[in-house]
Each structure stands twice: as structure tokens, then as C-alpha cells.
């Protein structure tokens, strides 16, 4: 039964090569690296600058977005992430993997999983702003242009994960 399931997913190396070409296309056609966290940052900036413009101008974090000429939501990353959403739906639809569910290890409840998902997301929100990107942006795209920051990012993210994995073992297996 296990064999069938893994056949449904693409060979990881092939997927990696295709993904590598997608990254190259991003650089070649748009001069940008792929990203993830950047789009959420733009969403937050757009929301705050339109709801509270006076606050935005004097806040160090929101200043640049408040003073920019065009809407801070009209960025390359936001459109890219919208595309990711669409791509996921397309692939999932074809593979029959579209299903509403909460995925969790049998040792915990859905509720626990949701709580940790929110916590994990929050940590990523903070960490990605500090680290100027997430695994896709700083890590993957950074390594594609051979930037030191990319290698540091990936090394630290995975290293930390391994370090703390045993604490959260029950969440997964």
C-alpha cells in the first residue's frame, strides 16, 4: 500500500530539477528570487498603511510602505504567492488530493495541531522579517545566486529544527 502512495508523488530529484528551472525562470524573466514570507509582509503593510496612515508614516517599520507611490500590495511576491495557491489547487485537483482536513499525528488532537500550527506560523512571521526571508526566499533563492546569507539561513533553520525535534516528536509520529 505504501508503494502506491509514493508513486502518486513525483520523484523528488525530478521535482527538484523542475523547481530549479522555475527559480531560473524567475531570475531570468523578472530578476527576482522566489519567495513566501515577503507576500505576507506586503499584505500586512498594505492593511496597516490603508487603515492607519498617520501611524504608518511615523513607524520605522511601515514608513517606506506608507511613502511609496503605488499600493504596497502590487508587488511581484504577492502575485507569485497567488500563483502558488493556484498551482497547488491545479495539481491537487488532478491528483485527487483536494480535501478539507486537519493533518495531525494520531497521538494528538486536531485542536493541538491547530494551536501549534498558529504558533509555528507566528514564529515564522517574526523570524522571516528578522532574517529577511524564509526558506524559499532567503534560503532557496539565496543559494541559487550563491549568496552567503542563503547558506547561513538554510543551515540555521534546519539545524535548529533538528536540535528541537525531539521535544515536539509527538506532534508528528
Amino acid at each position: 500500500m505504501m508503494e502506491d502512495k509514493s508513486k502518486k508523488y513525483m520523484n523528488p530529484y525530478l521535482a527538484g530539477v523542475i523547481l530549479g528551472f522555475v527559480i531560473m525562470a524567475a531570475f531570468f524573466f523578472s530578476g527576482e528570487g522566489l519567495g513566501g514570507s515577503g507576500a505576507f509582509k506586503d499584505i500586512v503593510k498594505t492593511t496597516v498603511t490603508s487603515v492607519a496612515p498617520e501611524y504608518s508614516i511615523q513607524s520605522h517599520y511601515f514608513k517606506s510602505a506608507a511613502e511609496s507611490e503605488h499600493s504596497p500590495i502590487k508587488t511581484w511576491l504577492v502575485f507569485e504567492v497567488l500563483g502558488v495557491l493556484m498551482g497547488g489547487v491545479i495539481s491537487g485537483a488532478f491528483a485527487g488530493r483536494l480535501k478539507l482536513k486537519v493533518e495531525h499525528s494520531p497521538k494528538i488532537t486536531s485542536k493541538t495541531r491547530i494551536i501549534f500550527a498558529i504558533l509555528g506560523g507566528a514564529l515564522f512571521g517574526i523570524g522571516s522579517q528578522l532574517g529577511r526571508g524564509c526558506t524559499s526566499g532567503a534560503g532557496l533563492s539565496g543559494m541559487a545566486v550563491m549568496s552567503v546569507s542563503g547558506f547561513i539561513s538554510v543551515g540555521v533553520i534546519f539545524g535548529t529544527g533538528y536540535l528541537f525535534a525531539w521535544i515536539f516528536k509527538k506532534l508528528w509520529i
Partner: protein
Amino acid sequence: MAPIFEQGSDWNLLAALFIGIAFGWVLERAGFSTSRKLAGVFYGYDFVVIKVFFTAAITAALGLLFLNFFGIFDFENVWMPTTYTWPTIVGGTIMGLGFVMGGFCPGTSVCAAATGKLDALAFIGGILIGIFFYAFTYEPLWETLRGTGKLGKVKIGELIGVSEGVAVLIFIAFGLFSFWLVDKIKKDYNIKDVEY
């Protein structure tokens, strides 16, 4: 020649959409829309993250160098991150913790949400909360740290004193070694597959 589309132009945004679609499609096809598969890298039952991630980075790095060699791609005209050591390390630590707790990273969470995973949706909500928190505590907590450790736009080859081509070769060797290693680990420790 590169980049083809001008920054800020509408064509560029359209390109972003299509590139994103390709990105999302590949991620889902590789199985990155399920958190248990992603978290497997930390427990040894599924190393798909290592395989896809490093293959992609190696392919892209090698590919960009080749495009540059043929004179149709210039590193100076495209995005290149500035290396800031301390914020990257601290941010990376926070993100690593978030990864093992949430089982996603921002890109994969969007892909998973696309296939209906509610925990991915929760993760996305968490990202927004996290960014809001960061933004409103920016000046007291984060601003100074974020600007430290600036090394400029350093490439890894420059850092260790070799040409970028040699650096990619080392990267390839490292990648191939880790692929061999993770398969060996799974076999030798007899780690069972996880049903999900």
C-alpha cells in the same frame, strides 16, 4: 538580456503569477502540501525536503552560472540578498523552531492550504499574527538587531576564496553526499514510513 520584464511593469506581475503557478504545482506534485511529509526530515521518515530543496538550489545555481557563461544573464541586474550575519542567524533559529512546531514554511503552507489543509490555513493566520507582532514591536525589539552584521552582497565563493564555479562544484558534491547519506540513514536505522 535578463531580466526580460522591467521591474514594476504589469508584464512582470503577470510573469510572477505564472511562475508562482509553476512553483505551487511542483511543490504539490512533490508532496509538499502535507505537513507530516515535510516534518519527516527532522525524524528521518521522509527526507523529501532535503532531496527537493538541495536539488533545486543546485540546479538553479548551476543553471544561472551557465546562463551567465553564455552571456545572457548578469548577476548584477537581478535580486541578490545582502548578507547580514546576526539577524539571519537569530531569525533562522526562530524559523527553525517554527518549522518543527508548525510543519510548514510560508511557501508550502500556501500550497497546502490550496489543497484544503486547515492546519495550513492556521499556519498562515499565524504568519500574519507574527508579522503584526514584529511590526508593532519593531523599534524596541528588533530594529537594532536587524541592521547588524552587514557583510554586503557576498557570494559563498568569495567567502571561502574560490571561484563561484568551484563553489557550485563543491555544492554539488555536498548535495550528492547528503542524498546518499539520508537514504543510508533511513535504511540502516530501519525507520518506518508514516501513513498520512
